[in-house]
């Protein structure tokens, strides 16, 4: 097991290196000059030139790449051109908000998707199946910003239940406060801020996962061992849950893992609509300012997380299906 994890972690190095180089090249190939965005419209060409020199942007691209990689292997992600703060500090300050959002979105997605997927597989071609699949289709096709707006108008403006934007206290902190004080106020307040963005973000993933659960369940339900279990007189509830669903889980876990990665990246739009102070908004702002070090650093951190999630998913396989472990 440890060798497997070790091997996988080693494999990460070339992957992350490749991503870094790719992001670096892409950013430097698109037009737009950080010096110009830093100085604003009224800058003179001489000012722009001077700042380019200071930022090292006048060096040949391969020299800039070399410097970037050299700093990277030393664990130095650079300093934000605009905010003059180390990129790592900036990314780490915004990451918890995104993780919190993506995690709750995933929980919501799974809570919606698993029952819907199971029901539509068990009751295939019934109205329940059609309704579930209609919502799944709707969830996939609906633009995230539009759903977000609708939720804000309904639940914040009209009903005034949830705040329309922003983030309350970090969820972990609120939990600790609640446990210490015995007052649920803290955790509920944090949830109030989290619920609309998480729902917005979760609905799209729920749609994908529902479809996966359905097709995976349909496949398993046709297996012989299901018929055997039924013939043995096991109650159909347990057949579905223990015999069918457990075996249908493997592809579902893959897609849930992938969805978590997607949620980290997909949070960009949701974070903008809900003014959620996460890494997605950090990237968007950094791209529009051509703040190269921040974009590079943020993408690298997201890539690292994505890779770790994949590793965890692989380990989970082994946990669910011992056959994989022995292989």
């Amino acid at each position, binding site marked *: 097991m440890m060798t497997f994890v070790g091997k996988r972690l080693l494999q990460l190095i070339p992957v992350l290196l490749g991503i870094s180089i790719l992001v670096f090249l892409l950013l430097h190939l*698109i*037009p*737009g*000059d950080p010096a*110009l*965005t*830093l*100085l*604003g*419209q*009224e*800058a*003179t*060409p*001489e*000012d*722009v030139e*001077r*700042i380019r020199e*200071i930022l090292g942007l006048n060096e040949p691209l391969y020299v800039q790449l070399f410097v970037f990689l050299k700093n990277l292997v030393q664990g130095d992600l650079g300093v934000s051109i*605009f*905010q*003059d*703060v180390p990129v790592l500090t*900036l990314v780490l*300050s*915004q990451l918890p908000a995104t993780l919190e959002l993506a995690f709750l979105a995933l929980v919501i997605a799974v809570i919606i998707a698993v029952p819907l997927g199971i029901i539509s597989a068990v009751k295939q071609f019934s109205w329940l199946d059609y309704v579930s699949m209609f919502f799944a289709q709707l969830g996939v096709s609906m633009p995230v*910003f539009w759903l*977000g*707006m609708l939720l*804000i*108008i309904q639940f*914040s*403006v009209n009903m*005034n239940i949830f*705040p*329309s*934007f*922003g*983030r309350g206290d970090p969820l972990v902190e609120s939990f600790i406060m*609640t446990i210490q*004080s*015995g*007052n*649920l*106020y803290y955790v*509920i307040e944090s949830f109030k801020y989290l619920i609309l963005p998480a729902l917005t973000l979760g609905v799209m993933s729920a749609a994908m996962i529902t479809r996966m659960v359905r097709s995976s369940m349909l496949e398993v339900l046709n297996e012989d061992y299901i018929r055997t279990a039924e013939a043995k007189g096991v109650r159909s509830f347990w057949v579905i849950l223990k015999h069918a669903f457990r075996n249908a889980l493997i592809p579902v876990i893959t897609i849930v893992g992938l969805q978590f990665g997607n949620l980290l990246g997909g949070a960009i739009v949701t974070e*903008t*609509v*809900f*003014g959620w*102070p*996460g890494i997605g*908004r*950090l990237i968007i*702002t950094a791209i*529009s*300012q*051509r703040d190269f070090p921040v974009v590079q650093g943020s993408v690298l951190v997201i890539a690292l997380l994505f890779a770790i999630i994949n590793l965890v998913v692989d380990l989970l396989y082994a946990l669910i299906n011992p056959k994989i472990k022995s292989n």
Partner: protein
Amino acid sequence: MKKLVWLLFLSLFLVLVAGCSYENPESASSEPEQSGEEGEGTSDTSTADIIKVGLDVDAGSMDPRLAKDTSAARVEELVYDGLVRLNANLEPEPALATEWENPDETTWIFTLREDVTFQDGEPFTAEDVKYTFDTILDPDFQAPYLSLYEPIKSVEVIDETHVKFNLKEPYAPLLSYLDIGIVPKHIAEKGDVLSSEPVGTGPYKMVNWEKNNQINFEANEDYWGGTPKTPKITYFIIPDNTTRVAALESGDVDFVHSPLSPQDISRIEKNDEFKVEKTQALGFTYLNYNMKNEILSDVKIRQALSHLVNKNVISEEIYQGMDSPGKSPLIPASWAYTDNVPEFEYDPDKALELFAEAGWEDTDGDGILDKDGKKLSLTLSTHSEDPNRIQIVEYLQNEFTQVGVETEVLTNEWPTFSTSLMEGNFDIGLVGWLNLVGPDRAMYNQFYSDSGSNYGKYSNARVDELLEKGRRVSDQAERTKIYQEAAKIVTEEVAYDVLLYQGYIAMYDKNLNGFEIHPTGSLYGLKDAELTN
């Protein structure tokens, strides 16, 4: 066994939850105070201790010398004072300087306010003023607005309360630019601290900044201008225009202002719960013609194109009256404003006449004007962040194409678009200018030959002469004449086609009283505002 463990967990959880209370710790602690007040027979209305403001972007550097985004300016207005402050008519009024004199054309002497302290308790002195401008003038410091201060040769400390500005040449606009915040030398010397922890002499202190989320301020009780009425102000960062207005409607914020979407404004105007105030902003939106383009270098073509632009349609249909039809680079909010400039009213027939005079006609019947076998083909470009500007270029594409000008639309995000402007790599660019606190700011960098922001490479010796003169002459009446003449020339020659004078709009809770809007969008006025419940 497994089931039993789960059951145990579940019951433990339920017991814990059931044992928890639910009450707002803040309201619980403040309740006795309120009942006390009532007991003393005070009126039913109470004043909120916080005003919540929704802003569109987070601040970059909060150091006034390095600040360049609008949110950093909003922070600066609360935390810092300049030597002067511009009033709603953009005239300089005393702030940290109580008076000033101009003994000769290149010398300004400022008398500083006494007994002013920075928010850390240290006294404000002439040394701080000198340090602030010395650092701005140091090219290595990378101050974004260095060019506005370049005519300053040196700043001398005469004594603790007097400073002397020595200029390289007469520079009349100087006072308009001296509203920049004065930084405390004793802190700024330690390095780049003020970018994230600003300390000034202003009415509010910044207490904390959660990046991308909120900036919190607390009243500076020792403020020389009197303690602010509301103890706290919070700026919330809400990037999406519609969400920001929704936050106002839901009561999550009390105040929002431009940039806003026209559709949201008309909705809020119909709602009695809010006040909507409008004024002319310090900006205009314009078409920038590239004189290096062979076709556009002919003034007749530029005039013909101007006759194809229906500014009323743009103002009414796209902006729903938020921005008004424009004429020249001298905006209505400016003291130098004039209505008396050449105007190219919407008239496609007149445009066709001018095209014909310039030799462009549709000789081959393909619907596109041509001359010497070359088609009249142009690209209209703008940036993708502003949906209204995209609508303008699409509208213009339609108008231009109808009379036979082959028009391509190009929209790119701001960094790409602005680079193409700087490099002169465009035909007609739709762009805007903000913060035009005086006519020099609106014209010098834009129309002076070879100036950095003269993207279209417009050049006219008379205009250069006038713009130089406008900087040297100190009499405002004479300056007005100078800038008006320059504005007439650049409008006649269509260096720019000014489409819109931008409007500034503030929308806020109807119970917010005492706030006066300012054309720069300044929130300094919040120090006199209070929100009654």
